[in-house]
Structures are given as structure tokens and as C-alpha cells.
């Protein structure tokens, strides 16, 4: 990386990090019972009153940590999928990765209802199955970008039907199924987040370590192979990381949509297409975006609360349409 270029990009990353911290701060303060910054500081210093401590430790901190982790995971997963499939319209919720993870979670909850620690693994298995199906279609059919997205939607539909089938046979397997399907973090606890958090942190580190391989892969299959990259192996490895990230996020946050689509496009405009910057930027922007949407979800209609998935879809849906129309104009 060029040193001058790095200096130019540094303030941008500082700004993104500050935005993420500000979002986390808002998330800790705002909600049904608002905490002032002074109260927050008092609790952090161990001097807060008992109710504030309870609210912060058992509600706000898990929710904020969950938002930050799920947002970062889904955004990075989206960036990886878009690069590997060379398709800017691809994202975990669009090509069936999220719903694959959802099916994995539903099956796991139906068969092993008490094995909470297995849920991220089941989500990964489902997400990986989804991503491999899409890769298979892309490689075998040489499918165009739009065809690939449509194929992903078909796969997504099949997985969703699978979730419905599991719920019909085991109605108690996913308590609060509607929240799971829309995606939300209203009832998360640190116990639920912990196993997925390890998966997310490890996969984020692994994805950053493979950023150079991603850059070479982005040059196209032939170019990448002629530069000595084992294309098929790296592709599967990166998609496995993307599946693990999306699966881990889905395991505690439900089927959140659009973070994985919106964040990579925003970050590319800010820091360019180089993978190390893209992934780091996506982690920060995805975390901030989901956290801010969650804050909006819990404060816009207070004391009522919307699942964050609704807010994301309301914002992400139009963005996806804009992206489609922009591509159409570009290719017209």
C-alpha cells in the first residue's frame, strides 16, 4: 500500500470509527428508559444506582454489542460475497445465505432445543450450503449477474419454505419466530451472543488476513490464476468465512436484511475498492448502521418498539432498487 495514500485515508477511518463509537454511545443511552451520559458514566465507574446498572448490563450492553457484532459481520460478509461472485447486487440476504442460516437455526432448535452453543455451527452449515449452491450455479451455468441474484432469491425462497416446514412440524422450536424472521435484537443476552461473538471476531481477523487474496481474485478468474492464486480453494475459503459471519449474526439477531448490501457500497465510495480498507470500513460502517437503525427502531415510536429488521428493510429496499436502476442506466 502506498504510504501517501494511507495518510489520505487515515482521517476517513478515524471518522468511521468515531461514528461507530457515537452510535454505540447512543445505543447505550437511548431506549424505553433513557440514561443520561452522566448516569452512563456513573454506572461505568461503578457508582450508578441499581436500576441503571441493571438496564445497562442486562439490556443495553448485550443489545449494543449484538448490534455492533451483527452489523460488522453482515457487512463484511456482503463485501466478501460481492467480491467473490463479482456481483455488486449480491448480499447475504439476497442470495439465500441468511435464509440458509435461518433454516440451520430452525433445525437445530427443533432437534437440539437445549444446545444453545451449537446454534452458530448450525447457522454456519445452513449459510454455507446456501453460498455453495450459489457458487455452483455461478460456475456451472456461467450465470449473468441478474440471473445469479434471481437464482439466489429462488434458493432463499426454498430455504424459507424449509423454515416454515420445520415450524409446522415443531411449532415450539423458534419462540418469537416472527421476530427471528424480521430480524431483531430486543431480547438478546450476552450468553446468546458469546459463542457467535468468537466466531465473528475470528472470521473478521481471517478475512482481513486474506484481503490480498481477495484483491487478486477481484481481477478475474484467469488473471488471478495466472498470478499463482489457487482460485477455487480461495473462493471456497472466502465464501466459508462469509457464511460463518452471516450465520453467526443470524444465530442471535435473526434474518436481518440489507446491511450486507448497503454497507459495502457506501464504503467503496468512501475508501475505494482495495479489500483491506473495504473490509475494515465495512466492519465499522456495518456496526454503526445496524446500531443506529436499532436505536431508531426503539425510539421512533416509543414506548412501542419496531424490530430493527423493519427499519433496515425500509431503508435498504429503496437502496437496492436504486442500485438496480443505476446499473440499468449504466448498461443502457
Amino acid at each position, binding site marked *: 500500500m502506498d504510504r501517501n*495514500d494511507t495518510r489520505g485515508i487515515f482521517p476517513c477511518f478515524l471518522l468511521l470509527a468515531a461514528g461507530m463509537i457515537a452510535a454505540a454511545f447512543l445505543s447505550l443511552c437511548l431506549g424505553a428508559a433513557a440514561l443520561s451520559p452522566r448516569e452512563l458514566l456513573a454506572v461505568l465507574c461503578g457508582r450508578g444506582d441499581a436500576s441503571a446498572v441493571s438496564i445497562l448490563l442486562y439490556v443495553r450492553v448485550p443489545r449494543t454489542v449484538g448490534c455492533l457484532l451483527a452489523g460488522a459481520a453482515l457487512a463484511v460478509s456482503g463485501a466478501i460475497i460481492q467480491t467473490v461472485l463479482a456481483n455488486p447486487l449480491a448480499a447475504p440476504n439476497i442470495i439465500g445465505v441468511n435464509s440458509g442460516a435461518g433454516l440451520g437455526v430452525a433445525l437445530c432448535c427443533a432437534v437440539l432445543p437445549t444446545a444453545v452453543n451449537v446454534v452458530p455451527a448450525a447457522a454456519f452449515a445452513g449459510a454455507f450450503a446456501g453460498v455453495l449452491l450459489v457458487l455452483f450455479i455461478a460456475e456451472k451455468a456461467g450465470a449473468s449477474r441478474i440471473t445469479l441474484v434471481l437464482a439466489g432469491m429462488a434458493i432463499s425462497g426454498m430455504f424459507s419454505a424449509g423454515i416454515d416446514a420445520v415450524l409446522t412440524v415443531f411449532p415450539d422450536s423458534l419462540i418469537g419466530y416472527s421476530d427471528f424472521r424480521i430480524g431483531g435484537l430486543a431480547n438478546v443476552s450476552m450468553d446468546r451472543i458469546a459463542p457467535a461473538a468468537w466466531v465473528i471476531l475470528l472470521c473478521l481477523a481471517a478475512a482481513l488476513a486474506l484481503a490480498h*487474496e481477495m*484483491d487478486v481474485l477481484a*481481477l478475474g478468474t*484467469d488473471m488471478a*490464476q495466472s*498470478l*499463482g492464486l489457487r482460485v477455487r480453494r480461495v473462493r471456497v475459503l472466502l465464501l466459508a468465512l462469509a457464511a460463518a459471519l452471516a450465520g453467526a449474526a443470524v444465530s442471535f439477531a435473526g434474518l436481518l436484511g440489507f446491511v450486507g448490501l448497503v454497507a459495502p457500497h457506501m464504503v467503496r465510495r468512501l475508501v475505494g475498492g482495495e479489500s483491506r480498507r473495504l473490509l475494515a470500513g465495512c466492519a465499522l460502517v456495518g456496526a454503526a448502521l445496524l446500531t443506529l437503525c436499532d436505536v431508531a427502531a426503539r425510539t421512533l415510536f416509543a414506548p412501542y418498539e419496531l424490530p430493527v429488521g423493519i427499519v433496515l428493510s425500509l431503508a435498504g429496499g429503496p437502496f437496492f432498487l436504486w442500485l438496480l436502476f443505476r446499473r440499468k442506466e449504466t448498461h443502457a
Partner: protein
Amino acid sequence: MIELQNLTAGYREHAVLEHVDLCFPEGNVTVLLGPNGCGKSTLLKTALGLLPPLEGQILYDGTPLSELAPVQVARRAAYMAQSRGIPNIEARRMVLHGRFPYLPFPRRYRKSDHEAVDRALQQADALELAHCRMEELSGGQRQKIYLAMALAQQTKTIFMDEPTTWLDVRHQMEVMRTAKDLAAAGKAVVLVSHDLCLALRTADRVALLSQGRLVQVDTPLHVYESGTLDKVFGVHVCRVCVNGTWQYFCE
């Protein structure tokens, strides 16, 4: 040197080219000529290991290609593809990708890599483009950067698939001149071209392909004199002496 022995190449069991024996000696520009669909690009991709051969073998300095790891192949042969995506990165960063085969994990560029990139940019006459973004460059400027990237790979052989496509006449001639310079510097340059006249003017050796077969391998003069070009392309190729050099044209 790269040698193709009794090579049959194609896609998914469908042979595009059959029983090709050909080598690419260093210090020579070998131009693959032939009508559309005769398998020039397929031959190039198979020689690079991007497509598996259906039959026969490919030797890199006597070692079968199948026994070489992709990185070892990439240190011996560079590839300028016909069509490529345009990443949203700096041109210099693009050229740095040419050093990928030499970077052990975790892929940190060393001083020697930056020096190799500077030399490659200079050789490709692209130093002033180094800090431009790839998206902002014209077709000719991009081609220079791709050439610099191939040069940064520091291989003995360079394969160029239609390097003059989309370029104006001046840039076409520049690319061909660079190919000659590289050969003069001891590299084996293998070039696919549709421009019969430009190819005949540039090549040290012409490999003429037609209907899935290698028809002739010889100097441009001998290939021209044999009349095979006329039969393969269905045109009449003529030759005139201009300022002491032979120029070719078709009618």
C-alpha cells in the same frame, strides 16, 4: 522454454485444437495467427494452465506443467488477458499485483517488490500513470499498466492475448514495439493477434492455426511465401518494401 507436445485443448471434452506441437523460444516474438474461433486464446490459456489439456503435455523448462504449483507457473509465465475487469484501485497498486507470486503469507511488499514495480512502470512507459486510478485511465493507458504488471512478474515468457484490441494505431504500434524490445531483452513473447499485417511485421515466428490444427510454424517471410495465409484467411496477402522494411497488406 515452454513446449507444447501433442496438445489437444478445448472446453469440457470438446476439442477446439488437436495435436499441436509447438515451442516458444526465448528471444523471439511468436505470433499466433488464425481466423476467429480457430483456438488461439484456448491455446494460450491451456499453455498457462488456466484450462486443463484434454491430451498431450505442456513442459516448462522440461518439467510437466501438471507437476508445478500455480505460483511456480506464475514465476515462469505472465499473462495479459484479452478482457479484464477494471478494479477501483490505483494503477501502481495494480502493478504491485504482479509481485503476488513472490509474496509469502501475510503478503507484505518488500523493498525489492517496490523496486521491481518501479522498473516495470518505467519499462512500460507508465511511470506518470502510477498514481492515477484504473477507472480514470484510457484503454491505451490501461494496457500500459497491464503490461507493467506482467513485467513486474519477472517471468521468462509473456503471453499476450489480443494486446492491441481497442487501441488506436499509434498505441498498437507501441505495444508491438514493446513486444520486440522484450524479445530483444531475452524474453519469449507469445502474442495472439487478429491484425495480420501488424503481426507479420512484428513476429520472429508465426504459428498459423486453422480449423483446430496448427498448419504452419515459420518466419513471417516463409509463411507468406508458402501462400498458406491466403488459403487460411481467404484473402490475398501482398508485400511491399517501404523505407527498407517489408510491409504487408491484404486485398
